[in-house]
């Protein structure tokens, strides 16, 4: 700690602080343009100059100068005032004064400073810039005439996102910020640059001319897409989410968002939303009143329950409270057939982790990853499934020089980071590589074995996974496997990351067990600050597991329900917030099940392919209309706040479940989400003691920052065999989308409007495939046509297709395998 005096105020701050940060802590305001909390010091704008008694004679930039003991700082004097005013005048020489039409007007740092320093006239005459604006892309508009060259966009894109689409070009007066070759922006469209821009040079295009900042009501909530649980602040006006506002003050994401969080909100405003209940009459879905619809549902379920039974399949984007009510509805119906998210993909947590570590969640929180010195990421897709967590890994690697190992079947953005090494294996062989790493640790004697159960069996089974052997089968060099294992075991703090979700149903348990084995053997489980992360695909995947929306007792799982329904041995299906036809593996089976079940109820925002097959469709509400809690992948329970009201007669799932339960005679009556949460906290051990209204801006992490493993048991797990075939298809998540909801959001759709099949550049050359060609893909007796996209991340013989799109019908081919041998033709 360092003591210093700022404006006569004596303060003590940490020795890494800058003068600016120290002043801020003391409540003294120093103006800045180029400073940002999460970026490295820069010192270019020169409006934060202050006087320091020990460095008399010159003015000191407060945002870059570290504090020293006994420093005496003056933040305002006549000279400082004059210099700051001059700098503002300089900036305004060529800055177009179009505040009336600039969407930043009202919250523009330059505007505010201009008022504060009373820059009313400009002594300097200069030409205003007249640069063309970049309006090529649909999401981010750049008007470089308004730029003050603070470089925040350049830096955030490089330092945090790791994409680097911007740079300074030209010199002197003509310096400007541009993309490569000064073309239109073509990037990940995460919009970090939008949030960092202190002026109106980079603005969100969907929000163009929509409203003024002071007209907007800000509502903090949690993003409903992936399990990262980013805080998003909705800008609400006219009962619509107009934009997502920058907020780095609260939440787990430090103000960082990806394209889905920043631009994917618009599905809530979509005109395609269901607004009234629908009942199928003579094969047609017709509008009905809530009373009619609920009556029909209750009748149908009662009848089915008395017959062969009812199955309930839920999505993982419902709040904890809603999931709890759903369980009560299931009780009221009298069924134990309750499951979520396809029933397979989460088994890594509910079975894999439970068997090995005795826990049902990630053991650490995200900030700990930033301090890790070795990170093992399983599947390169991690960046695409949880982009903002990807940024955390970025920080760990770039700022804290962590070593990153990636076990993946394709190259990805992680692999481009410095200090990153990709253990590129043949598709579907993750477990083999992880086993080989475990074997390498056992071989060289560095494995942690104290207090570990099941070691002998594991050793026996690992005998088949000597690194050399696995190297031959997977294509990962044995030295690389050994080096990665050694680094992991030698780390002071390590992190093992694994994402799970609907497109990764195969081997979900096996990979998690293999990862847990490795965590135990490498000491990751024992070391403080070292953790294993299993991150769910959806916003409340963890909540669904915590609340036990999984088959219990004699209940059937999702796949069993589908099988049963298809075979005619289940009378009704209740599908809540899932488009099974699009996203579940094996479309044929899902369709058969929906046809086979006598009575199907779909509860959704849109008339999805699944809903179209339903007998009754109930219009539900989006996250923007809900009050409740989500639990993210690090076990953080966070509050979701409603910003708008539902369109038409649509109701929140909460309201629907309550009404339905009452129709079924269960007599559910809670005064609100708080009461439901209190009830569920009573039932779920981990949530005990958590008070709904006491959940603050940072949420509550159940089980503490580090969840202690209850057991340390290594379990033998078998690897897979390589998939034969000239081409192997991988399915997965695309960075721009999440599940099927994002295909209704304008932002993500504007960038990736339709499904595609991705080729590596070598394959593309051989097959003479170019971007946009229609490609036929045949497998499992079905054929789909997809547009080609050529990239450099896929190894030879591997093609990739994202699973989000209903029309593409990818799940006609994909039946839940880790990789599919396919025939590819033009």
């Amino acid at each position, binding site marked *: 700690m360092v003591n210093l005096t700022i404006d006569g105020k004596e303060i003590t701050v940490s020795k890494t602080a800058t003068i600016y940060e120290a002043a801020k802590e003391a409540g003294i305001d120093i103006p800045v343009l180029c400073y940002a909390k999460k970026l490295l010091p820069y010192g270019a704008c*020169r*409006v934060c*100059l202050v006087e320091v008694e020990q460095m008399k004679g010159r003015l000191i930039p407060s945002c870059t100068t570290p504090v020293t003991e006994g420093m005496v700082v003056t933040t305002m004097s006549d000279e400082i005032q*004059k210099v700051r005013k001059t*700098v503002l005048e*300089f*900036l305004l020489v060529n800055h177009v004064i179009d505040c009336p039409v600039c969407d930043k007007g009202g919250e523009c740092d330059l505007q505010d400073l201009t008022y504060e320093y009373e820059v009313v006239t400009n002594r300097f005459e200069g030409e205003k810039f007249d640069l063309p604006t970049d309006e090529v892309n649909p999401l981010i508009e750049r008007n470089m005439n308004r730029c*003050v060259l603070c470089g925040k966009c350049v830096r955030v894109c490089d330092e945090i996102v790791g994409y680097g689409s911007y*740079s*300074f070009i030209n010199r002197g007066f003509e310096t400007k910020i541009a993309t490569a070759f000064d073309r239109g922006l073509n990037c990940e469209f995460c919009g970090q640059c939008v949030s960092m821009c202190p002026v109106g040079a980079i603005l969100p295009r969907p929000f163009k001319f929509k409203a003024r900042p002071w007209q907007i009501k800000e509502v903090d909530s949690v993003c409903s897409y992936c399990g990262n649980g980013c805080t998003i602040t909705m800008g609400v006006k006219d009962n619509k989410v107009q934009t997502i506002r920058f907020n780095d003050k609260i939440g787990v994401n430090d103000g960082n968002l990806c394209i889905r969080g920043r631009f994917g909100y618009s599905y809530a405003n979509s005109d395609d939303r269901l607004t009234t209940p629908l009942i199928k009459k003579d094969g047609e879905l017709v509008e009905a009143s809530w009373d009619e619809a609920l009556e029909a549902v209750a009748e149908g379920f009662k009848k089915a329950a008395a017959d062969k039974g009812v199955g309930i399949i839920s999505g993982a984007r419902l709040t904890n409270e809603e999931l709890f009510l759903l369980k009560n509805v299931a009780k009221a119906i009298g069924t134990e057939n309750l499951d979520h998210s396809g029933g397979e993909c989460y088994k890594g947590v509910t079975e894999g982790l439970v068997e090995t570590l005795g826990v049902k969640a990630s053991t650490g929180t995200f900030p700990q990853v930033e301090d890790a010195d070795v990170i093992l990421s399983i599947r390169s897709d991690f960046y695409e499934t949880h982009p903002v967590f990807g940024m955390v890994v970025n920080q760990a690697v770039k700022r804290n020089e962590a070593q990153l190992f990636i076990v993946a079947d394709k190259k990805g953005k992680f692999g481009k980071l410095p200090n990153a090494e990709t253990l590129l294996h043949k598709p579907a062989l993750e477990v083999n590589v992880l086993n080989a790493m475990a074997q390498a640790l056992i071989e060289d004697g560095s494995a942690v074995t104290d207090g570990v159960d099941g070691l002998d069996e594991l050793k026996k089974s690992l005998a088949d996974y000597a690194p050399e052997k696995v190297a031959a089968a997977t294509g990962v060099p044995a030295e690389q496997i050994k080096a990665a294992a050694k680094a992991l075991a030698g780390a002071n703090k390590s992190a093992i990351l694994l994402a799970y979700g609907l497109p990764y149903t195969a081997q979900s348990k096996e990979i998690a067990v293999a990862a847990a084995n490795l965590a135990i053997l490498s000491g990751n489980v024992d070391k403080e600050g070292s953790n294993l992360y299993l991150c769910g695909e959806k916003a409340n995947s963890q909540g669904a597991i915590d609340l036990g929306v999984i088959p219990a007792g004699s209940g059937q799982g999702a796949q069993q329900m589908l099988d049963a329904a298809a075979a005619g041995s289940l009378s009704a299906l209740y599908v809540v917030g899932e488009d099974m036809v699009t996203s579940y593996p094996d479309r044929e089976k899902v369709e058969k099940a929906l046809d086979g079940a006598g009575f199907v109820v779909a509860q959704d925002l849109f008339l999805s392919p699944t809903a179209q097959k339903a007998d009754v469709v109930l219009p539900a509400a989006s996250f923007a209309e809900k009050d409740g809690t989500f639990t993210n992948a690090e076990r953080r329970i966070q509050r979701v706040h409603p910003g708008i009201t539902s369109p038409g007669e649509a109701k929140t799932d909460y309201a629907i479940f309550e009404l339905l339960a009452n129709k079924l005679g269960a007599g559910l009556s809670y005064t609100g989400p708080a009461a439901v949460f209190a009830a569920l906290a009573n039932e779920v051990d981990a949530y005990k003691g958590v008070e709904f209204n006491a959940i603050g801006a940072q949420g509550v992490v159940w089980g503490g920052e580090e969840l202690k493993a209850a057991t340390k048991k290594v379990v033998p797990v078998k690897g897979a065999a390589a998939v034969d075939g000239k081409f192997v298809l991988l399915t997965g998540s695309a960075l721009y989308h999440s599940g099927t909801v994002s295909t209704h959001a304008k932002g993500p759709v504007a960038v990736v409007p339709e499904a595609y099949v991705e080729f590596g550049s070598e394959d593309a050359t051989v097959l003479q495939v170019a971007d946009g060609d229609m490609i036929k893909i045949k497998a499992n007796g079905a054929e789909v046509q997809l547009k080609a996209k050529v990239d450099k991340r896929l190894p030879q013989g591997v093609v990739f297709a994202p699973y989000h799109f209903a029309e593409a019908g990818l799940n006609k081919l994909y039946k839940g395998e880790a990789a599919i041998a396919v025939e590819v033709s033009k």
Partner: protein
Amino acid sequence: MKHPQLLFKNRIPGETVFFDGYRKSGGYEGLEKTIKSMSPAEVTELVKASGLCGRGGAGFPTGTKWSFFPSDQPGPKYLVCNCDEMEPGTYKDGVLLRTDPHQLIEGMIITAYALQTPEAYVFIRYAYEDCAQNLERAVAEAKEAGYLGKDILGSGFSCEIHVHRSAGRYICGEETALLSGLEGRRPNPRLKPPFPAVRGLFDRPTTVNNVETLANIQHIVTGGADWFKSLALTEEGAGTKLFGLSGHLEKTECFELPLGVTLDEIVNEHGGGVRGGKKFKACLPGGASTPYLAANHLDVPLDFTAITRAGSRLGTAGVTVFDEETCMVAVTLNLIRFFARESCGWCTPCRDGLPYVAWLLEQFEQGEATEEHLENLRGQFRNIAGRSFCALAEGAMGPVEGLFNCFEEELVDHIKKGRCPFK
């Protein structure tokens, strides 16, 4: 020559001395002596004792700079030679490299030994292609003779020298911008601290020295610190300096003269007097970024400290002389335009302030200036110098400072007459 010659002792106009010639004149003896009989710390101490100051413009004591260098830190470390000589009026390094490139190579090897850096770079201006080729030949020759490369002279010390051609820009001469440029990034200056000695090239400890500074090292090693110090004519100075003469002189050449030689001697003796028998009006004593010295400063001895007392800086010792018919406002405008164009565009005062100063000076030249413009110019001088990120803007304000110090009445004259009095 009346003064002793060190750097130019092998100078034959129009010719370059390579390995054989250099060896004959005692070349690489300093290196042999160093490697065989001195420890790295002793070299640093010797250079410190010699009083050698950086020849690149700032005049910082070289030995002191070296003593900050963590030469015992494990891992890669770098020595970088700054040969991005782009300041108007400065051309001494080019002359040196066209005369005797091996001096630099030997100096660099000794320095690399003193700092224990296994890698060294020469960052050379793109326009000095001939010098780069000279250097490459010299590197190859030194390698062949065993003075460079792995295990030099059996000492176990290895050193590689790479010649890197800059893409060219004035800002590349700023040491941290040079490092950015060498890394392949946009040559923007970097934040200090951390200083290059802590985090320099590729984030590793790095020392950046000028060509002439490094070329002096081997002379210090062979001649000793006391001898080197005694070369200068003043108490404070040490060694000789290459003075590159330009402007309105009879003879515009580069001379090696001891530090502390008077301006009068340079102009009237070595420069052969002002061209056409005209009167001396002013000069830039050390390149474009130094304040002017006027006729009343002719008796100032040119060394780092004495010249500071006269209100200027020795800089690179590129002396540009102006005769009595030169408009100093026009000269300043010309220089400011150069600096405004060469600003990297990073910080506001430099990027937007310098064009404004240029605009103000244009008003004077066009006869449209008023009292207000004069006050504005004075104000800008205070607003820019010392407020910018790196030294470029501060250097750019050097001539403006000189203008106010020595020729303010000329500015007033422009206002009064409503035109440039020299046109």
